[in-house]
């Protein structure tokens, strides 16, 4: 597949995204307070922490769905105060959600095709006639999407409305939709929540494949420590909106603060 598009070129290993002293509050409630960390190009970065640690809020901040009251976010060298979600998408940030956010009324194929929206440019006029360039474009992207479908092994459910799919497959389709964007940074919010061992293994393999096949940088939230250990290069740990540790999986696992935090929630 083609290389991710747009933005300043960043070599593997360099910082792709930097979060600096970011704080976010809803009304009085502090969701994230003064968190800083970075994500390097090409790595798999795990964000872990007990429930309500502000992990999802963090992702929402990164792709511009929430706007932090303080702090700055630098993505591909551009620091920005406020950004609309679709701008984040343009910038090359893909995303999947904790509780699947697919377009339920559409087939798996259309869902993934929708992920190509940004890459499609044929004018309304051509679309209207569905003729010449419009068709050519549609075919070109359909081909791309079919490769994703093949990659995720979801050929059989191509034409099934996603609403009818089992949870595990829905998660796969959602990953497919995110991949269709050819993101530079892929945010996965608990990609394995509620999956059985088998599905988890598949998903892990897919994530790794994505990472080395397309060289996509991945930030994921995950509860299953085993998975985090296997997948991630570096881990940042949040607790009650505060960063309590940051480093390689085993460093983090040894960290006392982390252990406490987890014992703290594991009543």
């Amino acid at each position, binding site marked *: 597949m083609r290389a991710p598009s747009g933005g300043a070129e960043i070599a593997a290993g360099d910082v792709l995204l930097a979060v600096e002293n970011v704080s976010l509050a809803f009304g009085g409630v502090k969701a994230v307070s003064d968190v800083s960390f970075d994500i390097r190009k090409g790595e798999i970065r795990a964000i872990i922490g007990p429930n309500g640690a502000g992990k999802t809020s963090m992702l929402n901040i990164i792709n511009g769905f929430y706007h932090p009251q303080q702090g700055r976010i630098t993505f591909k060298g551009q620091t920005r105060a406020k950004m609309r979600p679709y701008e984040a998408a343009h910038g090359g940030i893909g995303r999947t959600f904790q509780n699947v956010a697919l377009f339920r009324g559409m087939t798996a194929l259309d869902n993934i095709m929708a992920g190509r929206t940004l890459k499609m440019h044929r004018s309304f006029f051509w679309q209207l006639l569905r003729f010449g360039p419009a068709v050519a474009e549609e075919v070109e992207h359909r081909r791309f999407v079919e490769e994703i*479908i*093949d*990659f995720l092994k979801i*050929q*059989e459910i191509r034409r099934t409305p996603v609403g009818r799919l089992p949870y595990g497959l829905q998660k796969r389709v959602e990953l497919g939709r995110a991949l269709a964007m050819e993101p530079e940074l892929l945010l996965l919010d608990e990609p394995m929540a509620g999956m059985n061992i088998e599905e988890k293994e598949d998903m892990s393999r897919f994530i790794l*494949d994505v990472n080395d096949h397309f060289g996509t940088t991945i930030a994921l939230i995950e509860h299953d420590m085993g998975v985090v250990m296997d997948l991630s290069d570096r881990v940042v740990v949040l607790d009650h909106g505060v960063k309590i540790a940051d480093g390689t999986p085993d460093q983090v696992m040894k960290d006392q603060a982390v252990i406490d935090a987890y014992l703290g929630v594991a009543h």
Partner: protein
Amino acid sequence: MAHDAAARADTFAKLLIRNADLHGARTAMRHKDLGIWQSWTWADSLEIVRAYAAGLHRLGLRRGETIAIVGANRPKLYWSVMAAQMIGAIPVPVYADAVAEELAYVLNHAEVRFAAVEDQEQVDKIQSVAERLPKLERMLYDETRGLRDYDHTRLYSIDSVIADGRKALAEDKSVAEWLDAAIAAGKGSDPSIILYTSGTTGTSKGVVLSHERSIKAASDTVAFDHLTEQDVALAYLPLAWVGDHYLNYAQGMVAAFCTACPESGDTAMADLREIGPTFYFAPPRTLELLLTRVTIRMEDAGFLKRKMFHYFIGVARRYGERILNGEPVPLQGRLLYGLGNILVYGPLKNVLGFTRVRTAYTAGEAIGPDLFAFYRSIGLNLKQLYGQTEAFLYVTAQPDGAIYSDTVGPACPNVDIRIADNGEVLFKSPGMFTGYFKDEAKTAEVMTPDGFVKTGDAGFFDEKTGQLKIIDRAKDVGRLNDGTLFAPKYIENKLKFFPNIREAVAVGDKQDFVCAMLNIDLTAVGSWAERNNVVYSSYQELAGHPLVYDMIEKHVADVNRSLAADKMMAGAQIKRFLILHKELDADDGELTRTQKVRRGFIAERYAPLITALYDGSKEADIATEVTFEDGRKGVIRARVKIRDMQTVPAAVEKAA
């Protein structure tokens, strides 16, 4: 007609070129991939195969060397076969599901230096036994997925090889010239392929076939079934099986018809429906599976629909086959059948993907008459053939209009068949193999001095139909004391065709008469029991129930009647039978893992019963050790009743 020209082209490479000339624009191959049927014309195929062949040669594959082909039916693997043959190398297809063990044996025995495989799985499998394959140098793969960060010093993607060859052909005329020369140098007598017979009997042997023989045989059958470049076949049978190599590859090359490869094993059914082949082969097992699915799905249908379905299936049973065979049928029969065709048969065949099938074959094992009749009655031209790898599949095949469920047809064109005194079938055919690879001894073993091949099957020609009947493996056929031929499998199959009978063991070799030990089918008989409110608590109780005995007795009587019908077998009717108190079970070593009965073992395990069968006693006690699901061992004791049967005088002719 394609097959005339085929005579002139004596190697597959030349055939490919001929097809590209005659049918350049016609589709040679399809593959369901990335959601649609990717297609290649004969011209495309030739171009690709030439490039591939050049590439292989540049990698170092030489004339006379072998190359293993491992994987599912995919264009690139078929092209691997063609490319290898084009430069005089010998492809050695191996079953994709073969375990590393078998794989190692075959690759080693065939001394392959090259292997073209489907994907990561196969690469891993081969690499796991790499140290036992000193000769193996290079591996080619089709699917890149997962192989990205493998060490690529000895690993190439097929695409890259083709690209490399294409480049060479384009840049350097001499390569093209060399290739043409290589093609021209190919002789019909050269070995075209080595097919390893799956090792049911001892270690597997490499059956060597030659270009001209394969092509000759294929040409004959192509003519026999009027296959043309218009036809389409779905290649879903294992690449390494003679069936696929014959039906799809050889016939496809000769008739220049289109070979379609399914997306994957599990989508084969759906793909079959989409592609709608005109030539179809399925082993009885598959057909049975299909029929069960049909019945189950119909059960969920509404009352009226179900009624209609069964009514018209009945109509089909009455008239269908006769209409298919072009026999006279009363007008109202034709009308009813026509109506049924609109309401049931047509749609049914459509859903199953048979709408366009002109010729369908089944083979491999005996097929139940009802099963066989069902498909024929709904208008599927299903026929039987008999053959084996050594014969390049075909020995006999049924011609349109002369179809019987219990015969396998007359000798194919240009095939001589002879029945040895011990009843073994011998044949001599245009397509027969040239020998076992690196195994003169075994080759000699199966060849008669005058050049016939021993099939190892016992059979005879049926007077009524003049078609061959295969009755059993030759070595299992015995004789009663009065000298009558006793073919246990033949009798057992007849018994097993009754849904109520799960397993059957016939005994009688060196005895005065034939006896049978039966297993009832718990589900079938169980539901029968419900309908007839027969109460039972266990298999044993049900098996012993007098009513069950009565029912089974009827079945046995039917079998005797049909045995009486042909006089070779008339003598071997069942005089006494019993229903075993337990189900024969692979865990107890009574069946093979492939669910075949192990006679010898059963004979000694149930010795008391067998003695009882012959000493005339009405019942017998038996104690057998069994293994339960949880692995515990236990002993089942039972008193088994024995029934005597009337035998039917051989003179009585069963109404055909």
